């Protein structure tokens, strides 16, 4: 009974004409109606094709004028997928904007400042950044956040884009993306897995050496695995292998894990076989060195229990987490040992159980307990792999990462409480704050595309943090609330000195020079007496876009300032948002590899980093006369970077 294509086409032309002929002041209303007609067409492939055929006329009608899509050269490919999923009518305009880009790429429409090659580049980036949705809408269809009509619209758009820009044309982009993720080593690897899943269907000769190696690491890590095809058949072969061949398998599997951070089902199957039958191979399959091996031997029975009872295909990344945890000798820390032994016996609260089940992004069955234990191993093993996902919860992610590095016992202890009671209790200046009693956190619609530890903790941490901030602004009016909240929230690792560039009473930036001098004197080895940082420093930074315009505030941790291999002094930091590679304007582009970064770190030249910081904690007992020795030229350079970027938004006192 639905409208025919020609009826919908006629309606589009009608509303397009109404929009085009409307006086400027009456256009907004007609724009909305036109978009609602475009939505009707976007419900099947023929309609989508019709929209694409008419996109030049739609563009010329002025549909994009006065909207954020007006100037194609200013569009950001990384924002496309999010906008496509934000609901009508924004998603409709976004869809039409991609169709316009496609028309430019195909030479059917000429736009000033946007040559066809730039449009093709843009669309390829769109497909890469939106890869999860571009190549499979299964995840979207299952998410009740999105209506079927919106999912259909998005998938039809991507289908059309893929027809014109097929997968092989995306390979260089995908390779770069894969290498970035591998260097950054997040705990959640869904994205890279989705990409590799698609690549394995391509003819192998299209893939270059490194790309083929990444695909193989996941789907055919050894010749035997390739021959077996599935982990099940692979496991059946293992008992028939001679010892030397088994050891070779173990080494090959673990080497791939070391190189990529990715665990295949074959490796899990091998490890489980080894734990049952060939315990001598376990440390090899986990790539343990002497330290790790010692920890394994000391806790062999427990480690075997973890491997056999808690690690399954649905959380196989836990193998990497376990290896890294053993390598950190964490089980030999009394607090961790007791806490972890208790965690494996914890009876989960029904709400937590439900959340963990909802958070299972793998196609395999996974119990809540398995998810939690595997996830805990990953967070303990990869403290810098924690991410905030699509939630505005950078503080919570930063806390989990910091505790995993410096207070793993505390982290697991908190996890036990929260997982069993669906509650968390914190102290703030002598008062108790219970998350269960707090109504509002920073986030209203929680995105559960997170690691299991974050799924359990972040909803609670977010509320506690928000409540602390509220109380702080009442208790200490006129002072930056972070000064009192950070030590209460993160713990005693936070230094007692605090500096902020902003004076909330006078609404302006003050003493910026002193701020930079203390920053250098406290953290930069050239000026602090040659010392490393003892604990990570939670710092607030201004986020700026590629035009250096102020976008907002963000929480990160400064981990170290050291000389990169090329001798440059760089700040290495933990950034909990998922994009390690960014463009902050003024040619400030954080990197995640190639400049001495460890997995999970981002880095910038020290001065560029300092130019984005607005608050930090420091140790005032150790400053002495060091701030005065920071060169004036350095301070002036940073001040200029600050004033010409976020500083434009503020009054300088």
């Amino acid at each position, binding site marked *: *009974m*639905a*409208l025919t294509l020609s009826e919908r086409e006629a*309606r589009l032309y009608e*509303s397009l004409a109404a929009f085009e002929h*409307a*006086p*400027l*002041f*009456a256009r907004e*209303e007609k724009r*909305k*109606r036109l978009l*609602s*007609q475009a*939505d*009707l067409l976007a*419900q099947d492939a023929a309609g989508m094709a019709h929209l694409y055929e008419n996109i030049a006329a739609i563009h010329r009608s002025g549909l994009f004028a006065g909207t954020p899509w007006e100037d194609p050269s200013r569009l950001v490919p990384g924002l496309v997928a999010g906008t496509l999923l*934000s*609901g*009508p*009518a*924004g998603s409709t305009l976004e869809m039409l904007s991609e169709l316009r880009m496609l028309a430019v790429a195909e030479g059917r429409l000429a736009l000033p400042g946007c040559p066809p090659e730039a449009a093709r580049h843009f669309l390829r980036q769109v497909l890469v950044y939106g890869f999860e949705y571009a190549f499979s809408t299964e995840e979207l269809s299952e998410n009740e956040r999105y*209506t*079927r*009509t*919106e999912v259909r619209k998005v998938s039809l758009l991507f289908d059309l884009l893929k027809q014109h820009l097929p997968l092989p044309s995306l390979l260089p982009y995908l390779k770069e993306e894969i290498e970035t993720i591998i260097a950054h080593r997040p705990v959640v690897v869904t994205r890279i897995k989705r990409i590799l899943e698609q690549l394995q269907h391509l003819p192998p000769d299209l893939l270059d050496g490194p790309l083929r190696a990444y695909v193989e690491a996941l789907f055919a890590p050894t010749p035997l695995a390739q021959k077996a095809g599935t982990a099940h058949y692979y496991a059946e072969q293992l008992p028939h292998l001679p010892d030397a061949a088994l050891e070779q398998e173990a080494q090959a599997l673990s080497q791939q894990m070391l190189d990529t951070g990715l665990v295949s089902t074959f490796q899990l199957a091998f490890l489980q076989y080894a734990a049952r039958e060939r315990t001598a191979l376990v440390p090899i399959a986990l790539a343990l060195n002497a330290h790790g091996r010692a920890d394994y031997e000391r806790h062999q029975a427990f480690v075997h229990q973890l491997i056999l009872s808690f690690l399954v295909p649905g959380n196989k990344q836990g193998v990497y987490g376990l290896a890294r945890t053993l390598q950190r000798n964490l089980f030999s820390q009394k607090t961790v040992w007791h806490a972890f032994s208790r965690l494996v016996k914890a009876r989960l609260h029904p709400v937590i159980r439900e959340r963990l089940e909802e958070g299972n992004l793998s196609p395999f069955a996974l119990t809540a307990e398995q998810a939690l234990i595997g996830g805990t191993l990953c967070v303990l093993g990869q403290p810098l792999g924690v991410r905030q996902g699509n939630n505005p919860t950078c503080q919570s992610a930063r806390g989990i990462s910091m505790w995993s590095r410096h207070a793993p016992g505390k982290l697991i202890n908190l996890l036990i409480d929260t997982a069993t009671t669906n509650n968390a209790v914190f102290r703030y200046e002598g008062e108790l704050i219970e998350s269960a009693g707090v109504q509002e956190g920073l986030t*209203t*619609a929680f995105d559960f595309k997170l690691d299991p530890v974050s799924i359990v903790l972040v909803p609670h941490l977010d509320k506690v943090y928000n409540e602390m901030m509220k109380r702080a602004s009442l208790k200490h009016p006129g002072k930056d609330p972070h000064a009192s909240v950070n030590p209460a929230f993160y713990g005693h690792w936070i230094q007692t000195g605090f500096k902020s560039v902003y004076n909330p009473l006078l609404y302006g930036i003050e003493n910026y020079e002193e701020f930079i001098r203390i920053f250098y004197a406290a953290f930069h080895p050239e000026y602090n007496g040659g010392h490393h940082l003892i604990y990570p420093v939670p710092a607030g930074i201004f986020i700026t876009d590629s035009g250096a315009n102020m976008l907002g505030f963000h929480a990160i941790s400064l981990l170290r300032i050291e000389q990169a291999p090329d001798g440059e002094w760089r700040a290495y930091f933990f950034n909990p948002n998922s994009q390690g590679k960014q463009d902050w304007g003024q040619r400030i582009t954080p990197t995640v590899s190639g400049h001495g970064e460890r997995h999970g770190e981002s880095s910038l030249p020290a001065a560029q980093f300092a130019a984005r910081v607005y608050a930090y904690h420091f140790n005032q007992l150790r400053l002495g006369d060091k701030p005065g020795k920071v060169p004036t030229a350095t301070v002036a350079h940073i001040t200029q970077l600050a004033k010409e970027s976020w500083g434009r938004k503020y009054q300088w006192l």
Partner: protein
Amino acid sequence: MANRFALIGWSLPVIESMQKAGLPYVVVSFPDFESYAKTHEIPFVGYHLDEFGSHSNSVGLAELLRPFDVDVAVPLYEETVEWAGALNSIYRNDPRVLNRAFLFRNKAMMKRKALLGGLRVGLFEEVHSLEQVHKFLDRLNEAELQLEGEDDAWFHAKPFAAAGTVGHHFIKSREDIDRKMSIKDFPCLVESHLQGQEFSCEAFIHKGKIRFLNITEYVKLGYSNFIPAGPELEAKRELIHNEVQKLVDIFGIEYGMIHPEWFVSEDGKQINFGEVACRIPGGHILELCGQAYGFDALLAFVVSHDPNMTEEELDRYFPPRGYMPPKHFGNVMVFPKAAQISRLEIPEELLEEPYYLDNNLTQPLGPQKINAREGFGNHFGTVNFAGEDPARIRELLKHYEDVPFYV
């Protein structure tokens, strides 16, 4: 034909219609709009159109309009009705035009006039205190021959001068009086509840006669309506036409458009008068009316105010006499149902519905809290439908009133 129309109040759709038709006009509205008007080359006179009273200086406004050679004033909003009336009194040299405008702005006076002229109205009184409301209920109950223990009669309390349901209280029991009403509501009009189906008309009047009568069927007051009305109401067109003409005669209305609301009596043979306005009705009624009958109803609204227009000239702006359109056009005004919303969701079944026309729903900028709706205003947009079968339209409107478009 008028030298120039003064549009009293700010309405972009009306300005658009005037521009398209090439009719001479000038907009009179608050000076805040001046720079916008200038940017878009809209002829404009800034004026503080505050509540019209004894202190108001319509002569001053007329002077400001003199350079524009204005000779017809058109009220676009409830609050500008007296201003337009005052100007037209000057232009037509007839002081009673202003008095008639007052009729529309004082609901007690309006009711009295209707009663005097022989229209069927409810029992009504002007009240100044809660005590007087209780006494009114005593008398109403008494007249309804209430026995001990029976429910109280229902009645409404509304401000003398407010559009639609702003400040309206529906009182269903004695307890309701103290619970729903407070000192700030007084003075006001109380009137007994009229049973029966409610509907509105839009009667375009020229030289004291109805040039065109539209009947709007309300599916749910303030949420949804469609045009032309279903066969049940259209069957009463002659009765409605006669009653509206009676209203026009009683009020002495010569030009413009009136928007009376009526209730069909229980036996279906009579209609009772609710109230009447003479500005652009809410609910996008004129837009639906124009789509259904194939004319620019906003333009027709404006030109009906022009005493100098000839019959032939007027015909150009109206559908042919006696024309009944084949399709019904209806809309649902969408207001969020949840207290907290974060995004707009268009249901699949809507896009697959052949009667669905389009929508202009606004996407929320982010999660936001929703305050109570006031007087059926501030909705988030409309969803429009069109189709031949009025029963289906009614069904769709009813259904989509309950669909949560915002979640």
